């Protein structure tokens, strides 16, 4: 069933690309509707998987066949309390992003095909239980995103796309080398994640383990992105079309943090513990730095992009705390890990939606410069309301998803790294400041004459954004359904008694 969830969009994408003659006759709305329906199939399947989820702590619903047994490579997919929420969030975000109206520039078919393809690949990445498969999905996602930004972006899109591609590919190669290093240490040699986690091949491996760790770390840190390797993010976001930005922020960034947990923390726990403090420091820097830089932005999308740096910093802080070598604080570590995972989901939904919103704003106003707007509440109530809700969610207001994540991250981290947690807390004041400024600048105050006829959100936009917002509120108010699933992973992971 998981395989179906992964491959239905991929197959559909290939079918779309191969059979354009039939498809070409359909108009863009029909195509979008069809693509949305296809995109929703994995979501439905994942919901079913969720209902079947038992939460025993291990991998469930595993599907596996040999692929390249000579090298110990298999097609293995499955899920646990970590991957299930992320995969489901991915599917949801893709449905929304595909349904979201966007200017196709006369090339609706390749756009939708790429989006569907990327959906399958992204879900596959979160469900992959084989390092090789993981890497395949990892790299392919880059290519698909490259084309999405390059072909449907605006501004200096090709350049940004190239920068994105080269930068993240540069991250993926250390990752590949590290995977190989890890693989070479296994006995018998295998890429099977579960087996590697069981073997712990690099336990006590000293420098070798450190090198492998460094490879993974660089790869994931670029993707996450952590300061100072975040510079690809703002241009890629600014020039990408809205839905691609949403996917980039909502899904692709999560691949990095997911990799940290799934691979680094699970397979090299000793080394992670050894470096947990530096990672935590880096995360704290990401948090404060990301928020400060975001505060200075005048461009809406750049601002949101930098808040991603900030939010991913929270995730990393939680992960560093969760993997730190301390005893007696397992409960706090579990909370930190749960919080980090919730933050991945929450950030995906919130920032994804915010990027969609900014796409809509661009479509209406033609610019991302915040000072060009003002008083939009007068004309666009839905837009303002949704943006405000999302902004508050992003700054961690209780009752919304971000809070559930952040309070756990802070609470969990404080037990491990009190000083860093305290520094990181400054981030929430800064994000509050920047989002309130954003709301004030763009939506409140007097309406400039040129926006007299500023249109409010359309029905599709309200519906799609509303769906995301609903989940944001749902997680914020009754998160037990989510936290329970994640905790089934996080508790055993940190060895909570």
């Amino acid at each position, binding site marked *: 069933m998981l395989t179906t969830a992964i491959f239905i969009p991929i197959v559909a994408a290939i079918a779309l690309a191969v059979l354009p003659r039939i498809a070409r006759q359909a108009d863009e709305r029909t195509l979008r509707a069809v693509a949305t329906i296809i995109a929703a199939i994995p979501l439905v399947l994942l919901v079913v998987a969720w209902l079947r989820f038992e939460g025993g702590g291990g991998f469930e619903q595993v599907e596996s066949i040999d692929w390249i*047994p*000579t090298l110990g490579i298999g097609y293995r997919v499955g899920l646990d309390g970590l991957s299930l929420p992320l995969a489901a969030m991915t599917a949801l975000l893709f449905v929304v992003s595909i349904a979201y109206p966007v200017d196709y520039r006369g090339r609706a078919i390749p756009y939708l095909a790429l989006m569907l393809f990327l959906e399958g690949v992204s879900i596959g990445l979160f469900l992959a239980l084989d390092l090789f498969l993981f890497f395949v999905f990892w790299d392919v996602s880059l290519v698909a995103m490259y*084309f999405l930004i390059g072909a449907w972006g605006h501004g200096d899109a*090709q350049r940004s*796309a190239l920068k994105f591609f*080269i930068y993240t590919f540069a991250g993926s190669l*250390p990752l590949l*080398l590290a995977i*190989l290093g890890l*693989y070479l240490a296994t006995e018998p040699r295998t890429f099977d994640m579960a087996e590697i986690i069981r073997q712990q091949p690099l336990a006590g491996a000293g420098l070798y383990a450190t090198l492998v760790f460094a490879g993974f770390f660089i790869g994931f840190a670029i993707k996450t992105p952590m300061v100072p390797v975040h510079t690809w993010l703002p241009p890629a976001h600014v020039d990408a079309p809205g839905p691609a930005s949403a996917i980039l922020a909502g899904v692709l960034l999560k691949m990095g943090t997911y990799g940290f947990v799934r691979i680094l923390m699970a397979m090299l726990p000793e080394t992670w513990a050894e470096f947990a403090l530096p990672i935590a420091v880096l995360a704290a820097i990401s948090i404060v730095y990301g928020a400060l830089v975001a505060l200075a932005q005048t461009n809406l999308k750049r601002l949101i992009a930098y808040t991603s740096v900030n939010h991913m910093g929270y995730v990393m802080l939680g992960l560093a705390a969760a993997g730190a070598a301390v005893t007696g604080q397992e409960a706090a570590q579990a909370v930190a890990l749960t919080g980090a995972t919730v933050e991945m989901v929450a950030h995906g939904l919130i920032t994804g939606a915010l990027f969609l919103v900014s796409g809509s704003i661009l479509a209406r106003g033609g610019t991302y410069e915040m000072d060009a707007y003002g008083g939009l509440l007068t004309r666009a109530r839905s837009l303002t309301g949704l943006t405000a809700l999302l902004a508050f969610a992003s700054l961690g207001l209780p009752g919304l998803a971000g809070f559930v994540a952040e309070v756990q991250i802070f609470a969990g981290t404080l037990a491990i790294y009190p000083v860093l947690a305290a520094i990181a807390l400054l981030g929430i004041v800064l994000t509050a400041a920047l989002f309130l400024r954003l709301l004030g600048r763009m939506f409140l105050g007097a309406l400039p004459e040129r926006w007299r006829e500023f249109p409010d959100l359309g029905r599709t936009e309200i519906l799609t954004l509303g769906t995301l917002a609903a989940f944001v509120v749902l997680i914020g108010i009754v998160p037990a359904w989510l936290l329970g699933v994640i905790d089934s992973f996080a508790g055993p992971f940190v060895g909570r008694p």
Partner: protein
Amino acid sequence: MNDGAGMVAVVGDVLPEIALVLGGVVVLLYALVAGAERQMGAALLALVATGVAAVLTIAVLADPQKVTFFGTYARDGSALWGKLIVLAATAVTIGLSAPWFRRDPRHGEYYTLLLYSGLGAVLLAGATDLKELIVAMLLSSATGFVLSGYHRRSSPSAEAAIKYYLIGALANSAMLFGVALLFGLAGGTTLDALDTGLSGGIATVVGVGLVIVGVAFKIGAVPAYMWVPDVAQGAPAPVAAFVTAVPKVGGFIFLARFVLALPDGAIGWEVLVAVLAALTMTLGNLACLWQDDLRRLLGWSAVSQAGYGLMAIVAIGQSDLAVPALLFFLLAYVPANLAAFGVVVELRGRTALADYAGLARTRPLLAGALATSFLSFIGVPPLSGFVAKLLLFLVAIEVGYTWLAVVAAINTVISIFYYVRVLAPAYFGASAGPVRVLGRPAAVATLAAAGALIVTGIAAEPFLAAFRAAALLIR
């Protein structure tokens, strides 16, 4: 050893080669008797010859692997798979050549030369003897020179050919001295003799160095790489596709055998090959960066790819995966190269980068083939090139050459830039107008090569299993 039955037996070991020889003769005879308009028939005959040779090869694929012809020729898995890759590449080249040379009234013998050039690569792949090395190299080179200069009215073609020749002549001649020295030291010319006879003194060092230069010329590696971009740019496009790919198959496999015969630890061949690999890939990559001529870019990219291939050589003898890595590299590289050049051929040789703008709209399939080929060069999964690169990195790390893997990784990142420099306008740019193509055979050949990249990438297992079972014999 000289009895008739034995002779027949050994002749049976080279049936595919004989098929190629005879095929070449038949093509030549046909070319001499057929009219100017009928020269295309030679292409079909040549195709049949490669087909027969391939069938004969596949027929013995499962037979015991051995060295035959009194220690001079190996019929092991490596040689056989090398042969199959060469034959497939030759067939694709024939497909590309037929429409390309349509206007040339005497291109019948071209196919003879093509077949013999392929034969040279095949023999090189199987050579376990320095004499055989020299003649196989000679056959491959001599035909290569001529093929490169086959456009007799074309000044770039002539220039490419003569540069190719001059560098080749120097490298080959230098190699002769090296072979002489090694023969003297080992007391024999077979790799077996080398394996037992070499010690590791200064004479060995010089001899081995000279031979490696000769092989480096064949595979287009530092220090004898200069012909590659020139030939890629100047030679007839199908020939460019051929000579930047096929001789490498033979060269690489021979090099692997050769280093296997060298005394362990007595001379630093691993370090040397690693350094050459690093230099080759870096130089090729850097030179690619600002090329505005696609063919030349492909030539340089062929240089850098040779550098990646050398990574497998470093691990020969130390890693079980070295031979599979090498063979898979060839399996990935050759079709990618052919597909990329195939696109050039099908587009009637257009080579200016600017001419590729908007190709995705005007010729989506060809753009797809180009993209597939380039992404495979970069090593993007699930294409063949990814598996190849994975294996290459793997063996390099396994034998302790992590730095080489890192250099290769950095180079890969650099390479994205120039490949994308072609792809981005092709996909995001606006086209200047209708794009004329050459003809169906070339398109089919190109798409077949590109398709092979996808198939061998996803279904890598059967090949890998076969490559794992493939021996690399020197005695």
